[in-house]
């Protein structure tokens, strides 16, 4: 729908900046991984969506996937990201949300490693032939 004004965008952007960086523990949204690039990531990406969008792709989060994702966010969804920022974001995503990290997470969890996907029957379901 046509929204009243740009005020909403600016306000939400500022609130994300203010709260996203030092989010209180009671907030359900997962937090971005610590490390170089995190502040830019929170500023540019959290405006529109929570971090779980990123986490769910970590098991196959190659550099190619993250480049395609950032490109889509810029071109299709008009995220205000410069070329230089895009490179920094892809670096951050690759460092923190790649398959290596996902495998570590899986190995340390109690989830069956036969899962082909998170989901209600994931572990009970064999892989496609």
């Amino acid at each position: 729908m046509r929204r009243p004004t740009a005020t909403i965008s600016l306000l939400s952007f500022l609130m994300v900046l203010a709260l996203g960086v030092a989010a209180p523990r009671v907030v359900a949204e997962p937090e971005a991984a610590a490390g170089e690039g995190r502040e830019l990531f929170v500023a540019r990406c959290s405006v529109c969506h929570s971090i779980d969008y990123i986490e769910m792709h970590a098991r196959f989060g190659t550099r190619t996937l993250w480049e395609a994702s950032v490109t889509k966010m810029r071109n299709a969804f008009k995220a205000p990201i410069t070329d230089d920022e895009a490179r920094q974001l892809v670096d951050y995503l690759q460092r923190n949300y790649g398959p290596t990290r996902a495998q570590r997470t899986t190995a340390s969890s109690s989830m069956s490693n036969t899962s082909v996907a998170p989901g209600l029957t994931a572990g009970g379901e064999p892989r496609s032939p």
Partner: protein
Amino acid sequence: MTLNRRDVTTRLLAGMAWTGFAGAAAGLPRKLLAATQQGLAAGREVLVALPGKVALRRLTERPPNFETPLEYFRSVLTPNEAFFVRYHHAVIPEIAAEDFRLEIGGPAAERSLSLSLADLRRDFPATEIVAVCQCSGNRRGLFEPPVAGLQWGHGAMGNARWRGVRLADLLKRAGLKSSAVEISFDAADAPPLEGTPDFIKSLPLVKALHPDTLIAYEMNGAPLPVPNGFPLRVVVPGWTATYWLKHVNRISALDASEKNFWMTSAYRMPRQLFPLVERFPGQETAERAPVTEIAVNSLITSMERDGTLRAGRSALSGIAWDAGRGIDRVELSFDRGASWRRCELGEDLGPYSFRIWRSNWPTLAGDLHEVWARAANKAGQSQVETPIANPSGYQHNAYHRVRVEAQS
């Protein structure tokens, strides 16, 4: 899934979490913001109860995307409080029923209408239909190799009895010019950024005027829950949920095809991959076609809470559905597809509904490792053994295959 109960923790999560900061800034309903959330976290599985909802599997917090756990598919109608939630954009405004207006017009309409909810109920005949609402990307998370996008399991769908008015009746009141080719829908939700394409979808005239296509104000005898579209949503029986806009507040008759991102780039597939009967010719190109009708599919629902299926432990049953041709048969295989046994079908609530099926556990020689389920419809369409790979991971309708645990 093997769920280790020692690792299950209960978390109390304070409000503001639902659609997060952007939603808060844009005036999310206060009762949603103030609500306390209860979450169950087990490994990477997070179950969260949105206000007015039971705990659903959370894919993303903002915008909110939550899928329905398996147990709710054991009944033919999916309870409203367990119905899946899917949003593209994080700004979800509070809508007061008494102030709400549905605007109908557009370049190919003879006149413009502005209708209150009371007008809709008073001036147009009410009609009901049972229909499956299923996300185009349901089961995307099961594709191998993986496909980017929301990693849905089986629960991005639900079946409900929808009550509302026929879209055709509204369009008749507005009057369609002979130049009309599509009907488009816009809704009250919006992206946080001004430049992000608003979620607008269109239907071809033939589907918009179909007597089963509704603007619904109730599901399962109650007003639509907020996250399922209060106060109005489009109901397009047989077609995937991308066309079922929630919070719909503007209907436009168009004299040219809608060309926004959500029609020309998103929700499209290679043209010849799927045997679509109902198509959207005005939106097809030489290579690609919009996702339209729901592929014939089935689901085994006898797994226990932890996801395991134990032979003989409980009834073997599930659901099957398609785009409205009607389920002809559901078959099970206990020998990895070498032979198939036909199931008994339950009550028929109409061609667009889930159909319950049941089977006894057979007595088999040798070890039982897997149960496979497949459905076919009355038009001869059947589920596929291997999911049909496509760039966006739509229309996963491979046989449902569940590993059987040893008796314990």
